[in-house]
């Protein structure tokens, strides 16, 4: 499995945990699937839990400045952000 595929799989699982998605819905997440702002259950507290868990599972640090609409707008944005952070680590 390539590193990107691995990050994708872990992130899908994590989002399913946070959002309570069925495996089918989690698998259906596409790069342009909206997250923050598009899903009412993803409020600031839910995002904070998600980011803490992302730090934990991907062993990266996320700064306050990293967090904005560009990073969390869509599934593709978030995946790209984690992939980039992993590259820096």
């Amino acid at each position, binding site marked *: 499995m390539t590193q990107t595929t691995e990050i994708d799989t872990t992130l899908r699982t994590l989002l399913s945990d946070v959002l309570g998605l069925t495996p089918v819905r989690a698998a259906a997440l596409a790069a342009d699937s909206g997250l923050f702002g598009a899903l009412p259950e993803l409020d600031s*507290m839910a995002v904070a839990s998600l980011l803490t868990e992302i730090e*934990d599972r991907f062993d990266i640090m996320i700064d306050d400045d990293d967090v904005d609409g560009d990073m969390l707008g869509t599934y593709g944005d978030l995946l790209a952000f984690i992939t980039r952070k992993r590259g820096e680590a």
Partner: protein
Amino acid sequence: MPATWPCPGPAGLADEYVVVFDGARPVRLLIVPPLFEEMNRTRRFLVETQRQLDRLGIDSMLPDLPGCNESAQAFSAQSLGGWRTAMAAAARHFAATHVLAVRGGALVFPTRLPGWVLEPVKGTTILRQLLRARVLAAKEAGREENSADLLERGRNHGLELAGYHVGAALVAGLDAAVPEDEGQRVIGQSELGTGALWLRSEPGEDPAQSAALARIIAAEASA
């Protein structure tokens, strides 16, 4: 079954709620819940675990932490030290023989009891998450705040975090606290199944996970 018990707090004894399954049986489990939002997210999971434990012949008590849920005490007056005192008193009051501490509950549970710690979490992780939620909410409202400044202010004056008035003592306590387990067995989420309920943005439930947890406790308590 809901009941009350005399709980020590910063302003003296207060009647606090507790969910009790008491059949005067030999194994009596005190459950120390997670802190903040995770307490709400895991509520149905933990009470269902109690029902399953009851069927397996085990007594259990799930007290509210002072200041949380239905508590008559002020949340802003709470500290980790105060919660430790309250949970130690609950252990004595209910003559608990074992303890299960869940997530942030691992920071405040009575360590003298044998038992289990489910996915313990450091105080700084909890605090970081609360600060981050506040920074995000401020950003949405068009205000700039940052975690470092907020933490400094919180340590000295307390802070409103995720709707909780968190006193300076609790901020400082969380910033330093690590899980206190001493020989209690650490249970990982993977032993219960997938989908940690403490992560779920909308509180959910999963009877299969409750049953798995109850089975682990019943098997290991009598081992």
